[in-house]
């Protein structure tokens, strides 16, 4: 399923957070939204998730404006994982993950399809050994994986995740990025807000570079993460190369 925005303008208290943003998120691709702090990355993701209203422009799901689609269908189609997700009660891990099935449920009970989706999400995020534990007893990294599992359990065609690997250790960061790439390969549209440029270079298929609410560049990682863009937008020097036929990049010095 393709997610597309057309001339999106978002203003909050007279300051323009997104200015005339037209972008395409294709099915089967892992797209990264990148940019320095205050660029409008999270605002764009929240607008796509329907949490922020735009003053101008439209969001389309396969050419149908999202405001013409029911809230329930949208919830089944777009899964959103916020930055630092929360859980207010000491629910068990399996219960938290099961909440991802809410868009399909009519009551409080889960059917076999729900249970299968929950199990798949738990295995994919490597939390199957934690399912009976109360979520507040988990470490930050474990919690982050549970929350990702919750978002995956919806089995939506589109996954929007705001910094999904921010509190994970390197092994789990690599695993989650590889997992998201694998999920994208199954035909899903994955959109991530990321700060880690080395992961962006290695795992993303497409990038959208934002700065001060404007779209600066878009395309595949090597064409966007150019020394010029990194200097002008991030104010950094970087080093890069290739390893096992894959591009790598490391932020090196502030200018």
């Amino acid at each position, binding site marked *: 399923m393709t997610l597309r925005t057309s001339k999106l303008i978002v203003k909050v208290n007279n300051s323009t957070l997104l200015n005339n943003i037209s972008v395409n998120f294709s099915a089967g691709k892992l797209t990264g939204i990148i940019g320095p702090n205050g660029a409008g990355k999270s605002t764009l993701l929240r607008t796509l998730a329907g949490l922020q209203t735009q003053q101008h422009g439209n969001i389309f799901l396969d050419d149908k404006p999202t405001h013409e689609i029911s809230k329930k269908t949208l919830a089944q189609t777009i899964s959103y994982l*916020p930055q630092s*997700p929360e859980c207010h*009660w000491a629910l068990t891990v399996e*219960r938290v993950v099961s909440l991802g099935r*809410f868009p399909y449920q009519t009551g409080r009970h889960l059917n076999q399809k729900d249970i299968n989706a929950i*199990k798949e999400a738990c295995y994919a995020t490597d939390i199957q050994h934690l399912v*009976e534990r*109360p979520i507040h007893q988990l470490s930050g990294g474990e919690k982050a994986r549970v929350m990702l599992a919750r978002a995956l359990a919806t089995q939506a065609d589109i996954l929007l995740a705001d910094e999904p690997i921010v509190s994970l250790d390197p092994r789990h960061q690599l695993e989650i990025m590889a997992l998201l790439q694998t999920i994208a390969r199954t035909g899903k549209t994955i959109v991530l807000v990321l700060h880690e440029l080395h992961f962006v270079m290695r795992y993303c298929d497409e990038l959208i570079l934002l700065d001060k609410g404007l779209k600066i560049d878009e395309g595949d990682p090597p064409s966007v993460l150019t020394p010029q863009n990194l200097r002008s937008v991030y104010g950094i020097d970087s080093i890069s190369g290739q390893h096992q036929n894959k591009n790598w990049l490391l932020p090196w010095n502030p200018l």
Partner: protein
Amino acid sequence: MMSFTYLLETKREKRLVLFFLTVTILLFFASLLIGDTPLNIAPALQAIFQGHHTIDQLILQHIRLPRSLLAIIIGASLGIAGAALQGLLRNPLAEPGLIGVSASAALGAVIVFYSGLSLIFPLALPLGGITGALLSVTMLFLLAGRNSSVLTLILAGVAISSLAGALTALALNLSPNPYASLEIFYWLMGSLSNASLNHVWLILVPTLLGWWLLIRSRAALDVLSLGEETASTLGVNLSLLNKQLILGVALSVGAAVSVSGGIAFIGLIIPHLLRPFVAHRPSSLLIVSGLGGAALLLIADMTVRLVPTQQELKIGVLTALIGAPFFLRLILSSRREWLS
């Protein structure tokens, strides 16, 4: 192999509901039997069915039965409403009084007392209470605006509560007749001693409507554990959910306060005590808390009947006496959580 416990959890929840249901039914029968005057239940029941008038029949049908029924209905309302509000606000310290409904229902009843209407027409008192509760909820939504957030609703509730409290104090202050103000004062303390079957019929419809609104929204309370934004992306209509829950609390608790006066802390304590038994799941807490509230209020009502005080101890005083230390303990333990 992953061991999922959904089925186990559902079974446990059913068993818990069955347990509390049995306890409530047993307490209900105990409540019919226990009191100042010993009661011969068999002749009393016989008299009721044969349409005879005896002392036992009078005590059973017109004093103990309505009192016990009201204890169940009101206790259940406080329990369900407390659990629903704690789920909505995602805060274990929330209780039904927070949105101003209790204070406004009390004010409505006090105005009826003050005007002397209650002397002419006894049901004017609960009617006044229900009117007060409904007016307060209308005011709440007007104050909070169309797409009201939970925070605005609470702030508006606090404002309404203070206003209703001030107006109640004004009525007491200006009361021309000291007996009338004493009567108001006693009523405000909360009691079931003046219960009649008419009260039961009167509050039944708003109460059931309130329960229905609360229970039908409960699945969304689970999703709300993830915060309002995530819940919204999972398809929860937050504005509708807020309205349904607030209206449900207003109807059930407003109706309860209008016949019993203020009965504090049940809506706070019961959900908190029972939460671990339902694995902290907000949606599972409603019915269990309703039954727990009913059981606790039946026990409290039997206690005030049995405690040999010169004047019957008011049930609201008893629940507050038990509830306040409990509330303090709750604050202390949450402070520890915040500090840790």
